[in-house]
């Protein structure tokens, strides 16, 4: 617990700062799309300059993610926000949708920047620094996906045929099982939190109507004006406090839960890729055991594959540990902030009502005094 070394805890060690902002709409003959401004500030030597500003669209982020997955098949690449939101009536280009996406893209790039390995990925650097035309030409250069695809298709086929990977270490099965339950629980927490947000908003709307009724009542009650106005103002203040409470939920908890929902898909992918790498090795080993002759030729190949499997496993294990630590930290932070938000909310409301009460009891005492006077 003491040794939670993270880039974000020790800002002096960070040498790469990225922001995603300023969404802009672009309309062409064929399509309409949004670009986001990506600003990078860095002190790293590998970068030619210390500051960069580029514009990127969602497609570009997708490209980056797939490149990272290719280069590091068993590392946990952060999730991207969804392409579309199917449920609800969120339009593809509504302000709310764009803002949510922007925040998620910002998180995506920062997570990569914080990752001990991914942060030094070449495509990542190009993504952050290249001008639009440079990026396009670079995208076309990279090794085609198709050559890779062929390999993976075979690998998938073999793993499926085998009915699952035979020699999968327990650790990875454990991860798989953990993720199943984890995913289920996070989904539930997300639903609960969304529901709470909805109820809080409903409460806010009703309170907005509730306060003014007391002010209206003043018109027919001259002796109760102070009390009624006091109550009306308290309710209004509590209303504002509710707004803050809702904002806290929407900024601190909901995005975190949502991101970890998306992580489940990431983890599934990572485990699958690891299994495929192992399957490659296993199938070669099987093939070898079937052919009694020619044992020496493939051993080098097998040796390589064995190394590959070991690397993959180690990479995944290390990254898994890191992921778990991050998850723990993120969840703790998120729920702590919700608790703090709620405490703050109740403290604000308490102060409001207490000051109303003080005024009222002062008035009452004054009233009593004046009644005592003959």
């Amino acid at each position, binding site marked *: 617990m003491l040794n939670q070394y993270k880039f974000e805890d020790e800002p002096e060690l960070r040498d790469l700062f990225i922001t995603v902002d300023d969404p802009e709409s672009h309309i062409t003959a064929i399509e309409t799309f949004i670009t986001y401004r990506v600003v990078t500030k860095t002190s790293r030597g590998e970068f030619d300059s210390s500051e960069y500003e580029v514009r990127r669209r969602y497609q570009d982020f997708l490209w980056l993610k797939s490149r990272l997955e290719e280069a590091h098949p068993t590392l946990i690449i952060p999730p991207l926000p969804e392409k579309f939101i199917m449920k609800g009536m969120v339009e593809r280009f509504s302000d709310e949708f764009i803002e949510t996406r922007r925040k998620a893209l910002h998180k995506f790039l920062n997570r990569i920047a914080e990752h001990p390995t991914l942060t030094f990925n070449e495509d990542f650097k190009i993504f952050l620094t290249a001008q639009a035309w440079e990026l396009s030409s670079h995208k076309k250069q990279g090794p085609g996906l198709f050559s890779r695809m062929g390999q993976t298709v075979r690998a998938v086929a073999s793993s499926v045929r085998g009915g699952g990977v035979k020699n999968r270490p327990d650790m990875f099965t454990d991860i798989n099982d953990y993720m199943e339950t984890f995913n289920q629980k996070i989904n539930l927490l997300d639903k609960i939190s969304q529901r709470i947000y909805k109820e809080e908003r409903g409460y806010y709307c009703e309170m907005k109507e509730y306060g003014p*009724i007391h002010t209206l009542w003043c018109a027919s*009650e001259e002796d*109760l004006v102070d009390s009624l106005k006091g109550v009306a103002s308290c309710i209004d203040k509590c209303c504002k406090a509710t707004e803050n409470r809702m904002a806290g939920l929407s900024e601190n908890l909901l995005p975190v839960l949502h991101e970890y929902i998306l992580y489940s898909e990431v983890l599934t992918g990572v485990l699958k890729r690891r299994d495929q790498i192992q399957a490659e090795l296993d199938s070669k080993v099987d093939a070898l055991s079937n052919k009694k002759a020619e044992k020496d030729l493939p051993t080098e190949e097998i040796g390589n594959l064995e190394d590959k499997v070991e690397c993959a496993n180690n990479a995944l294990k290390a990254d898994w540990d890191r992921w778990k630590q991050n998850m723990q930290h993120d969840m703790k932070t998120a729920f702590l902030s919700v608790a703090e938000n709620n405490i703050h909310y109740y403290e604000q409301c308490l102060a409001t009502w207490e000051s109303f009460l003080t005024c009222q009891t002062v008035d009452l005492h004054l009233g009593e005094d004046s009644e005592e006077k003959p």
Partner: protein
Amino acid sequence: MERPEAEPLGASHSCQTGEAEPGTGPAEEEPGGAAAGTMMEDCLSKKIEITVSEAEKRTGRNAMNMQETYTAYLIETRAVESQTEGQCSPPDSLWRRYSEFELLRNYLLVNYPHIVVPPLPEKRAEFVWHKLSADNMDPDFVERRRIGLENFLIRVASHPIICQDKIFYSFLTQADSRLKALNATFRVKNPDKRFTELKHYSDELQSVISHLLRVRARVADRLYGVYKVHGNYGRVFSEWSAIEKEMGDGLQSAGHHMDVYAGSIDDILEEEEHYADQLKEYLFYAEALRAVCRKHELMQYDLEIAAQDLASKKQQCEELATGTLRTFSLKGMTSKLFGQETPEQREGKIKVLEEQIHEGEEQLKSKNVESREFVKSAWTDIERFKEQKNHDLKEALISYAVMQISMCKKGIQVWTNAKECFSKM
């Protein structure tokens, strides 16, 4: 001015002793012995079947020439006898809206002041909880109102005295029941301004408190939702903690506090119900205030009628005495056409009138005294009521603040505990 027959209550409550009332109307008078059954047989409800069978949405223009939507109800009446004979004659029917029922009831209240007039169903959907709609156009509300209106008519028709009222009968059977005209004629010319103001005040009090209570119920509903949904966290945290080594304890204990939080709302809202009851009391007090105003109006009306009566008798007397005809009267015309009365006849009439005038003046004097005393004592009590109301409502508002403070303190405690658990994650 025509005064319909309004029998004092004393006579009508002789159902148990079986005594007949003098001049109750149609022929069946039992000179004692027979019981309530006879009274009931006189009732309209035995002769005709009354139903409010349908309700329909309408749009029209109201008194201020504004477009409005309202519901109209179909009143159907059918003679009972025709049914027992095996004939099913088509019912008579006409459409009326709620405000017309109100006019009828007001008419009955004014003209039968000693009768406990059956109430009407709610004018508006009040204090509805949860899923129930506060909309007057809501089909469930309209249906319940339809039944309530039918019930009202049947109760009036079953009442031995008011069932015989001609205006009531015409309300059931004639499209133009003269109610509106009558209501216009029942107007007090010189009401005490303070009572008029008091009536306005009581209307406003009722209206604002109803509105407040309605919205408070909705606020409570939402608050309930916020608290209770948090309870779900408890269960999920607990399930999640099963797969976590380091976070498990923190999650589990935080979950417990979420349960506490969710459970705390029940007591909070229960306490708030007491506050709502305090407000409701003043809602009903508004009705009591209105009753006092109505009583003043009745007394004032009575007074004005008596004064008018007296004035017209005095005038008649003067005309007879001096032989001059100041106002047009049919009698005056006929006597001109068919000959004057004999001096003896005239003397006789003058004497009768003079007696009546004397009686009338005495009555007017005592009515005036009664009225002044009523106003004085009523106003004293109203001042007392105002003091009580100001005190009570102020206290109620303070108690509301106290409840809110308690709720906030509980909230702070629970979330502080939860925060500590989260920090151990």
